[in-house]
């Protein structure tokens, strides 16, 4: 039981680091893109308001939720390995 707890806790920790880094990076990229878009556009509204609105849209988008795959992917792979090693 103890090795399993170690494995899940450490695995969760490592994946969380990856998840958080990836989230921050992805948000920063989106912010840069929005800023570039504002520069190129007709500049009808304030720059900060434009970026803020874009980021809010991004926060509720499916793209952002896809980053959760960082957790799902390894779990699926491990389940597959367990099946192949022990039950086939």
């Amino acid at each position, binding site marked *: *039981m*103890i*090795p*399993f707890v*170690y*494995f899940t806790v450490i695995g969760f920790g490592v994946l969380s680091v990856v998840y958080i880094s990836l989230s921050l990076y992805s948000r920063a990229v989106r912010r840069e893109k929005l800023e570039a878009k504002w520069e190129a556009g007709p500049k009808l509204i304030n720059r900060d308001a434009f970026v803020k609105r874009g980021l809010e849209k991004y926060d509720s988008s499916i793209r952002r939720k896809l980053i959760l795959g960082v957790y799902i992917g390894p779990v699926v792979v*491990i389940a597959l*390995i*367990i099946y192949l*090693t*022990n*039950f086939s």
Partner: protein
Amino acid sequence: MTTVIKWVFWVTFWVLVAAFFHYTLPQRDMVRVVDTFEQRVDFGENSIFWASPDVGSDATAINRDVLFIQAVRDNDRVMVYRNEDTGWSWPPYFKFDTKNLQTEAADLKSTKADPQWAVITHYGWRNEFLSIFPNAISIRPVVGPDAGKGIPWLNIVVLLVFFAIIYAIWVRWRRFKAARITPTLDAMEDGIAEQREGFSRWLGTWRSKK
């Protein structure tokens, strides 16, 4: 001299990487199972080459019984496999079915006169000087020694991904070096040369004027 040190370092590094993959990645042997046995093992300096006790049992005991599978390979050389759970630790085979595997292996026992061939998937090394054994992962019967062991897809994928990552890091490092480190070093060298000039000029002010 620095070139020699560089070479020694990188050759050592890549030999270790190769040894790591050779030990950890699965390999397949065409074998005939001769017998199976069980023996208590007191782990000594070779303890790193043994896996973990059965999942769920006490992991703190200093010795335990280990299952072994004795086999003869298709090249007529003998091989002894250990059969241990890897459980939730390294290497990530997540093997829990040790006793089942032992039963399957025992079921495939055959004699030289009437051989039943099988493919054993295993990882690890046999080394007589350290008393270490490869760990059997799975076994499946085949019609004969010419049946083929299959294409090692997993190894191909793992190695491809590994070298892709290494290549990506290497390319970025080279770019970073060209863009940042080389110019900085050059600037530093120039700076030091200039300072030297300044220093000797300052020294000159102390020399007696002719």
